[in-house]
């Protein structure tokens, strides 16, 4: 272990003076500073996690506290993984996840690329574009239901205006085919700025000298884009995808307010399904197993993805 500058100073100071200067030892201070945080995280994160894992092997139900709690082993896990309804919610989640990421990456990158052309007032317009992502998703979901109202909704009116269809003829949140797209549109509206900001940071990190060198070598703009811009922004873009992926895998508030999981089960994402099992049907043991499966899935996928990300960064 190497000495920090503080340690060097401490060694050079006479013993009696050092005691006066330091008061409490660094070790003590470190623990006083870190302990409350660790305690709170243990109490609110680790302890509940262990409790969830324990509950997932039982048939415990919150609404029947007097019933004997039985140890059921892996039965909850077996039932979940063989339940076709749960695979349907996984499919709805995958649809939501893939399309939001594709749209947000395309639009977000394009916007960042344009903003990076440094036209006058680009800072102000960037701030305006960023507004949606800072708002409360539940409140956003709630007011998008208003925009999606057939006939009176602004969204239907604008679509009808440009397509010539009757604004009362379609309902974004009432139609089984349109509802999955309704949540994709609202989420894209809200989170495209996030991808945009990260891409913008990536674009701004590319030194001008690289482009100047490429210009000297008479590389075309098109070629510069594919051989300089894209590879340099890729690590940033992948980071944005990681964040959006994790966030949208846990998506709850926006969608539950927008469609409530309906019509039918077409927009029932895993978090919404989990909420129903845990807090409406009160199948606590079963939903704990469900939660553990979701956590393992997202943790596993994220770990694989981070490995790939690090490889891209090293290149």
């Amino acid at each position: 272990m190497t000495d920090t500058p503080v340690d060097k100073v401490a060694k050079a100071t006479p013993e009696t003076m050092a005691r006066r200067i330091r008061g409490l030892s660094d070790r003590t201070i470190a623990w006083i500073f870190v302990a409350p945080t660790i305690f709170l995280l243990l109490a609110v994160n680790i302890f509940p996690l262990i409790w969830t894992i324990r509950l997932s092997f039982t048939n415990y139900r919150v609404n029947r506290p007097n019933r004997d709690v039985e140890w059921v082993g892996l039965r909850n896990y077996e039932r979940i993984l063989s339940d076709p309804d749960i695979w349907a919610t996984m499919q709805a989640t995958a649809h939501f996840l893939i399309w939001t990421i594709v749209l947000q990456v395309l639009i977000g990158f394009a916007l960042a690329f344009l903003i990076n052309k440094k036209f006058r007032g680009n800072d102000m317009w960037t701030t305006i574009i960023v507004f949606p992502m800072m708002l409360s998703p539940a409140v956003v979901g709630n007011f998008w239901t208003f925009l999606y109202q057939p006939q009176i909704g602004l969204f239907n009116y604008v679509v009808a205006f440009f397509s010539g269809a009757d604004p009362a003829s379609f309902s974004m949140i009432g139609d089984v085919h349109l509802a999955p797209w309704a949540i994709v549109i609202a989420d894209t509206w809200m989170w495209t700025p996030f991808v945009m900001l990260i891409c913008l940071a990536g674009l701004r990190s590319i030194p001008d000298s690289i482009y100047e060198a490429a210009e000297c070598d008479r590389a075309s703009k098109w070629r510069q884009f594919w051989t300089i811009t894209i590879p340099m922004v890729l690590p940033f873009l992948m980071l944005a995808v990681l964040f959006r992926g994790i966030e949208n895998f846990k998506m709850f508030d926006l969608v539950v307010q927008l469609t409530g999981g309906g019509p039918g089960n077409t927009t029932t994402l895993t978090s919404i399904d989990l909420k129903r099992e845990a807090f409406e049907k009160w199948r606590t043991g079963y939903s704990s197993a469900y939660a553990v499966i979701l956590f393992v899935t997202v943790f596993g996928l994220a770990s694989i993805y981070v490995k790939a990300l690090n490889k891209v960064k090293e290149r």
Partner: protein
Amino acid sequence: MSFSVTEPTKGTKWFAGVLVVGYALITIAPLLWIIATGFKSGPDSIAYPPKVFFEPSMEGYVNLFTDRTRATQDMLEAAGEPKTWYDKIAREQGTIINGPSRYGERFLNSVIIGFGSTALCMILGTAAAYAFSRFRVPLKDDLLFFILSTRMMPPIAVAIPIFLMFRQLGLNDTHLGMILLYTAVNLSLSVWLLKGFIDEIPIEYEEAALIDGYTRFQAFYKVVLPQAATGIASTAIFCLIFAWNEYAFAVLLTSGTAQTAPPFIPTIIGVGGKDWPAVAAGATIFLLPVMVFTILLRKHLLRGITFGAVRK
């Protein structure tokens, strides 16, 4: 200005500017629409075609803050002349005000829980971040990874045991419970961000202070804290915005006394049918502070939303 090959041409700038401004206008339209709807009368808000120009009305705001019942003509006459301007607006809709609605309380809950958890989070977070930044804490790297991984858990999954734990401790539907919960959820973000900010402060300042006879504690709060003020302020705003916007825990763990505004706003209904101006008014009041904070935060936005992974 010197010529540079990397400087976009005037035409490119114009083209880019027009497209970005176009997108910005489309993206801001729904927000402006909601703000405008808050100032519409009931019939105007559901008019077809949607009304861009309308006569402003305070109906939405009056309905948001009051609890009303529909009254017959006789009852209206018996109630006499309206005493205040808001009384008058309620009467015009054929209703009588019974008293204030619960929106004020819910908003206040959001303020108490938001600021309470932010304050607690900053006190604990700054101390922990300082220790992580300056001392050799055992398992430091693992701990930071653990802190980040807590964010991967879906909130509903965490809510199951928290619900059981809170019920056991009597913390369900209390301000204290929500403050502790949001503090714990935000701590990971704030420790991580603050560590980044404190890492940037040269350690030489503290060394100088220590040599001058300051104790560690004094060096911490007289030298490091003032230097980290900007970082602490922007981290605090992030924590505040998170606590302010949070919905999943709020809807599952609160129902009455400690309910915050996000679960409440969607439940606003009028006398007969959904009262869209009132909902829009509620959303506007709730969203405006966040928009102001966003403008204040612009420079540190990226760092906050990416947990400090991207720094500018």
